[in-house]
């Protein structure tokens, strides 16, 4: 309850400062629209159905891309953490792929996978992959060697060691990666949408920009992206609290 009150107060302060800024500077609406202008534009975009259409497209990309990327990253991270050989062989490629900006990779994926939802999901998955894979690898290795020896003395197989010790000890670190990853997924979705047009909030920003100068609509799309990121981030934190009692 107190947390909610704090959030409402800070939001009110933010909107008030925004409003004051537009009044003091007298900036025209196509450069910096006042909050109530954006609010009114949001209501119209919701009423006409245009916001939902684009929101759902982005939401689908973020959810599928994050799920795919996180699953692949945890599996890869476990393998990297358990085998020095696998780490030596794979890590140069993983690091190099991460160093290439996803914005530069998206057109290639678009060509390969024909510009559909799958190509966009793949861009999201790719951007999500790195922080989660590295966090998982580090987490797996952080398992207490004393507990490792205890399990070995009880005859635990390598798979049991992973399931019963390594993954549970890695969870706090893995969730650190998931928190970073889920916000990156939103960035991935917008980048992918800019490359292969269709629907999505990234597309909506382009529509608002090109010739229309519908800056209030652009703000609506930006706010929607922020809200998506915040919601998923909170969801990850919620799951984390459920799974890790000490957190």
């Amino acid at each position, binding site marked *: 309850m107190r947390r909610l009150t704090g959030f409402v107060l800070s939001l009110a302060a933010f909107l008030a400062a925004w409003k004051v800024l537009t009044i003091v500077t007298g900036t025209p609406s196509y450069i910096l629209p006042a909050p109530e202008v954006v609010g009114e534009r949001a209501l119209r975009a919701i009423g006409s159905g245009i916001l939902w259409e684009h929101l759902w497209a982005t939401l689908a990309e973020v959810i599928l891309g994050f799920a795919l990327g996180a699953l692949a990253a945890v599996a890869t991270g476990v393998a990297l953490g358990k085998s020095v050989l696998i780490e030596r062989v794979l890590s140069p490629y993983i690091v190099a792929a991460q160093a290439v900006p996803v914005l530069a990779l998206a057109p290639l994926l678009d060509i390969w996978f024909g510009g559909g939802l799958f190509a966009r999901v793949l861009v999201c998955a790719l951007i999500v992959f790195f922080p989660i894979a590295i966090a998982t690898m580090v987490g797996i290795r952080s398992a207490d060697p004393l*507990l490792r020896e205890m399990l*070995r003395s*009880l005859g635990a197989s390598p798979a049991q060691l992973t399931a019963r010790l390594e993954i549970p000890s890695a969870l706090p670190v893995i969730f650190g990666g998931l928190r970073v990853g889920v916000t990156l997924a939103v960035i991935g979705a917008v980048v992918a949408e800019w490359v292969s047009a269709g629907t999505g909030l990234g597309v909506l920003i382009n529509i608002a920009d090109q010739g229309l100068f519908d800056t209030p609509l652009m703000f609506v799309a930006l706010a929607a992206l922020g809200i998506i990121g915040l919601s998923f981030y909170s969801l990850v934190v919620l799951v984390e609290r459920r799974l890790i009692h000490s957190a």
Partner: protein
Amino acid sequence: MTAAATKEHPTGLRVRVDGVSVSFAAPGGRLTALDGCSLDVPAGSFTVVIGPNGCGKSTLLRVIAGLLKPDRGVVHVGAAAPAPGDPRVGLAFQQPRLLPWLTTAENVALPLALRGVAPAERATRAKEALDRVGIGDAGQLSPRELSGGMAQRAGLARALITDPPVLLLDEPFSALDALTREAFDTELQRLWLQRPRTLILVTHSVPEAVRLADQVAVMTARPGSVARLVDVELPRPREVGIASDARATEAEAAIRASLASVHPPELAPWTGQA
């Protein structure tokens, strides 16, 4: 499957260590922990291994548990060499080593879970094991909520739950205060008298060795080996007051003399210790 192992060996299994050497890779060469170490532990006896820190006592236990392969020499538990995770051998450590994300009962039942025993049977047997070590009401607590002594009991219960014919205890009470420790010794003896099995306890306390052991194996400094065996012939159950018994005083003097003879005096602070 392991319960059957003890039924087959109602008084435990003989443990024989013969000319065992173990070394580890260390910065700047290899570190020899055990060198030509031999020890014969009769089935069902209570043997205490004593020596200062770093003399290879823990290494010896790990060799008997099958966790370390000796570079030279042979180890037998019963008729066969021990394998890593050998179900015939139970091991309790200096630290409780409980998994913090499980309850105490789940921790105690971990050896059964790893062998695919059904949850209902696990719960029943965990309760029994916790009862045996005197903390039957702590099963639902998190390991974080246990005191040091309770956590150590839980670690012991975990080693006992499969009822192994050989039980190895690696200084399980060394982190506890002196009074708790004495109570533990008495209970450990009671548990052993109730259910005889081969028990090997590592310690660096001479009075504890005298209170508990049939035979005391005195180890040399690193690289370690068993320098001398001292038999302790005292009636059981032995109480804390047994220390004043003439035969106990004699055994204690013999152990201290052995320790003094194999360790240079400047490295043997225990010789003057009460």
